[in-house]
């Protein structure tokens, strides 16, 4: 294709009435990259993804996915992408295999090809024994795995993972990430991920943080952590008071007493700790060093905790009219 990038977004704008959900957003995702797209709820994440998947049309700017313009070539974009949504989009009354077959037909695979492609994928996600069972008898994790298998069935060039592991137990999440990693290595699929889980964000090659419709930071997880600044060193000594004075005089570092011990904020923790030991005359019981986490990064750029944003799951349930309807009847 003409474009070297898997996803290319330039000055993208989307308005809903007076509200600007996405405001002049620009970024590019390289082929084969695992790209994280983080932000609080209502920041414009879902809107951006919807535009990239051709479910929404942009109000301004341009976006190309797999080399195709989302506005003028939606059909080409659709055949090049796969999606794993945060909401399940399986048909509960079809079997696992029927769901895959349905998908294969939508993406133009001849019937003869389908089981040849579906069977290895079902094996990969560990559902080969359940292929002929209706999806409504699956557990949450199994449904999710089937969704992922389905998202990959047509070998998409770009796979959108919109909070693919939300609401799953940690063990299932680990499994799913194993599959995703295997896949990335094998088919070098470009992946565009939104998540509220820090460990998942940490896996990304690069991360963009969107807040109030704008990209506020975009870089590798390490670079983003460095941009937050100082590392934290916490130590316990035989005499914290003396230690603090020595540190302030000898190392020109300010510190404070906390419940955990002495807390110091320093630029490069790894090289600071050896110098610390050279200077201290009091005995050191223990030292702990923390690099800034992506959580700190998130707070710095959005002013909110990434886990606050995570509560969005129950918000979404509450906003879902079905659930709301049932609740009203129930109460």
């Amino acid at each position, binding site marked *: 294709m003409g474009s070297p990038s898997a996803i290319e977004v330039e000055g993208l704008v989307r308005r809903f009435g007076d509200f600007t959900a996405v405001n002049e957003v620009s970024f590019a995702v390289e082929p084969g990259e695992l790209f994280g797209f983080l932000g609080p709820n209502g920041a414009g994440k879902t809107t951006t993804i919807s535009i990239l998947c051709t479910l929404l049309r942009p109000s301004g700017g341009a976006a190309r996915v797999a080399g195709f313009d989302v506005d003028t070539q939606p059909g080409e974009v659709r055949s090049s992408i796969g999606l794993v949504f945060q909401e399940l*989009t399986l048909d509960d*009354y079809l079997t696992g295999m029927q769901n895959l077959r349905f998908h294969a037909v939508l993406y133009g695979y001849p019937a003869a090809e389908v089981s040849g*492609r579906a069977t290895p994928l079902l094996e*990969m996600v560990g559902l080969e024994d359940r292929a002929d069972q209706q999806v409504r008898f699956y557990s949450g994790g199994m449904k999710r795995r089937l969704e992922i298998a389905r998202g990959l069935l047509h070998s998409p060039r770009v796979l959108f993972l919109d909070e693919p592991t939300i609401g799953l137990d940690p063990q299932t999440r680990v499994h799913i990430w194993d599959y995703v990693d295997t896949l990335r290595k094998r088919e070098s699929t470009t992946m565009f991920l939104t998540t509220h889980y820090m460990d998942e964000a940490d896996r990304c090659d690069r991360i963009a943080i969107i807040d109030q419709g704008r990209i506020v930071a975009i870089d590798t997880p390490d670079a983003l952590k460095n941009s937050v600044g100082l590392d934290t060193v916490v130590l316990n000594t035989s005499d914290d008071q003396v230690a603090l004075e020595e540190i302030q005089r000898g190392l020109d570092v300010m510190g404070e007493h906390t419940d955990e011990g002495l807390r110091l904020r320093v630029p490069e923790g790894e090289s600071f700790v050896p110098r610390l030991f050279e200077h201290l005359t009091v005995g050191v019981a223990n030292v702990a060093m923390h690099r800034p986490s992506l959580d700190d990064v998130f707070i710095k750029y959005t002013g909110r905790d990434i886990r606050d944003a995570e509560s969005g799951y129950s918000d979404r349930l509450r906003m879902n009219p*079905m659930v709301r309807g049932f609740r009203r009847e129930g109460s």
Partner: protein
Amino acid sequence: MADTVVRADERVITAAPQVRRDGNLARNVRAALMIWRRDIIRLFRMPARLISGIAQPMLFLFVLGAGLEGAIGSRGAAGVDYQQYLFPGILAMSVLTSALFSAMAIVWDREFGFMREMMVAPISRSALVIGKALGGGSVSVMQGIVLVVLAPVVGVSFTVASFFQMLGFLLLLAFALTAFGIVIGSRMQRMESFQMIMALVMQPMLFLSGAIFPLVQLPDWLGVITRLNPATYPVDAIRRVVLPKAVELEVLGWTVPLWADALITLGFGAAMLLLAVKLFDRTE
């Protein structure tokens, strides 16, 4: 576990590259048929739907029918015994109701996400809408046709010809009403609006179609409304096919022939189908 993954990998490597894919038209046709098949599969996995679809028409036929027959007496309705008059009406009623319902199942699909699976697929909106119209249409005809077993109870009999003519008109009605339902569904955001659609669309359409009372000697305003109701024409056709003695529908003194009933129904269905495709194109 790791063992499985490695084994699976090797197979996919041999299977993945260079897959022959369908051309545009073939893909869209197959997609439409698949959407149709999905509705049929779902119907048979939810047999309760078939049974509950029979309950309401039976109530009409045996309770309303028997009750009003006494009041109407020997004069009969439009030339036939009232329960017999009602029989084709409840066939139409059953098809009409379930056609609208199954079309509006797209709202259900949207709630539970399956709609997105179809909306992001590289198929045209027409394929999606046609598949949905075929699916909803077939499902509702099946729900209606089950009622034919009640025919002997009210003394209605079929010939082979009249049965297939009736089937044809039921299909037309189902197709047109499903298309109409998709139009409504594409603009409906949530299931709660269902009640409203029932009261404002489904019931008036049913009551004003001649399914329940003959469209003769009506007050002028009612006469006009019933003739504007697109469901009136297929209902008329179904009744005349099943009960040759029944009085024919007249519009402004013109006796509507069967072919005109068919044409009007088909025209309405086609218009709704086109509108549905248009609305879906703009759905976001």
